[in-house]
């Protein structure tokens, strides 16, 4: 018998600290699978954020840098400019990318920086205990929106893919989800495609991945998948928002 499914080489064989049922774990594996498929482990440098994925530098079998909160795209820019032939990716949550790191996100895109951003959108700050994030939905209860996010006083959620789609330097943007097997496979293809675009110097690529946070949503892992489908998907439609290099191959 042959292995039909096993741990990707690019994923370190270590226990991950994520909460039970948190889909960060799935996304880490998809990134590692994409790296294995493109055989780029030895050439890849990852940049970990501040947030639940802050320990990501322990979870990938490639060189990693841990960046200050929100600054991963800038750190990745520094790495990429020194080693343009390397594949450089950042792995960031919604607080890291779309709150404190908004300027770094938009300007990396505007520069057409040839990096790939893995953007995990779970509509909440996880590591710090469930505060409102820039992608927290209207009415969503969080630790800092205990009465539900009031758009009059706490503003509206930010749709990153839609925003970045207006930026010239962006080569590929897709929003995917990991709530079921079909979508997970779609997410894997999207991540692989983003890395491949980077390999072909096409410019800035970002994959937004709808993800769950059972602990801070106050739901079981399975209920969280339902909540994601019922609440996040309507507001954050899946699909490709920009694709500079229609894949002719």
């Amino acid at each position, binding site marked *: 018998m042959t292995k039909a499914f096993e741990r990707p080489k690019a994923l370190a064989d270590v226990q991950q600290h994520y909460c039970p049922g948190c889909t960060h774990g799935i996304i880490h594996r998809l990134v590692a699978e994409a790296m294995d498929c493109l055989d780029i482990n030895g*050439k*890849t*440098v990852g940049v970990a954020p501040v947030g639940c994925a802050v320990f990501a530098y322990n979870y990938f079998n490639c*060189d990693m*840098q*841990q960046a*200050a909160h929100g600054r991963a795209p800038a*750190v990745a820019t*520094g790495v990429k400019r*020194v080693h343009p032939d390397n594949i450089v990716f950042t792995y960031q949550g919604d607080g890291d990318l779309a709150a404190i790191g908004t300027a770094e996100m938009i300007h990396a895109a505007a520069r057409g920086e040839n990096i790939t951003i893995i953007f995990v959108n779970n509509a909440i700050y996880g590591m710090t205990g469930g505060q409102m994030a820039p992608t927290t939905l209207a009415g969503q209860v969080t630790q800092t929106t205990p009465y539900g996010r009031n758009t009059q006083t706490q503003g509206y959620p930010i749709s990153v893919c839609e925003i970045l789609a207006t930026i010239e330097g962006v080569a590929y943007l897709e929003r995917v989800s990991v709530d079921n097997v079909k979508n997970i496979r779609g997410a894997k293809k999207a991540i692989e495609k983003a890395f491949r675009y980077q390999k072909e110097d096409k410019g800035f690529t970002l994959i937004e991945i709808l993800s769950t946070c059972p602990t801070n949503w106050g739901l079981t892992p399975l209920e969280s998948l339902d909540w994601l489908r019922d609440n996040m998907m309507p507001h954050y439609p899946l699909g490709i928002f920009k694709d500079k290099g229609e894949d002719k191959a």
Partner: protein
Amino acid sequence: MSEKLLMKGNEAISEAAIQAGCRYFFGYPITPQNEIPAYMSKRMPKVNGLYLQAESEVSAINMVYGAAGAGARVMTSSSSPGISLKQEGISYIAGSELPCVIVNIVRGGPGLGGIQPAQSDYFQSVKGGGHGDYKLVVLVPSSVQEAVDMTIEAFDIADMYRMPVMILGDGLLGQMMEPVVFKSYEPRQILEKTWGTTGTEGKRKPNIINSLYIDPKDLEDKNIERFERYKYIEKNEVQVEVVDCEDVDIVLIAYGTMARVVKSAMKIAREQGYKVGVIRPLTVWPFPTEAICKVARTAKAFLTIEMSMGQMVEDVKLAVNGQKPVYFYGRTGGMVPTPNDIVEEIKKISGGEKL
């Protein structure tokens, strides 16, 4: 490039960085250091280096972090408010033990302050403007030539000790033009950077650039290990100029461009019969404590002169350690003391009013 050139301080510093092998510069516009990014954007492409203008000083210092972590010689520059924005990044760079050079062309502060020269960022640079236990080596040039020599040496110091090094200038130094020679420089012995994130190429374990140590014992060990290096630096990297301080009444202490004004004041005061000497730190971290302490045995008093409300004066007091009185004279906000202002202070101190 060994012949004599007339160059503006900012441009000379930029050329020095390139001569030192720096090929990555991340900048952002702010007066009075704008000639540095301008020069870099013209010159770097010629040496197939990179000039990149970031969206903010915060972003720029984090680009420096990434490039330094990837093993490159990298520099950034700014002026006071911009350097404040970089403090978190500098703390991360120190915590991750990354080498880089940071140039601060100081201007009047706080807040938006002014654009004239000042020395009011001394505490921020020497005592650490970011969070946590860390130090920067801080070099304080007082001429364009010295700014060149120090910038070149800064890259070696940074690589040797794997830490951020600051060139602490001011608007005067940045804007004035002086003749300068790019001498051949004997580089220091630097270990190969095997720790950079260059891609494992399947040949080694992953390199990780990181300052997070969630286990407090690990973080403490890291800090203690780094402070062992700082102790070594304090013993071996102090640079100070002591001018005629044997058997004098008052020792004037000043750094950077201020020291030039103070030397003129010394000449005038000596002509008028006052026995004065000058101590000029070339590094304000590591601080020349020993040199000052030694002179304190014979001198009667110290007068520290700064373009601020008095910051280095505290370190002078620590060095003198109560042996003798330490006085301060300063102008701030971009005002520059004149030699005669200082001679008046010397008279007041000598005239028994204060001695």
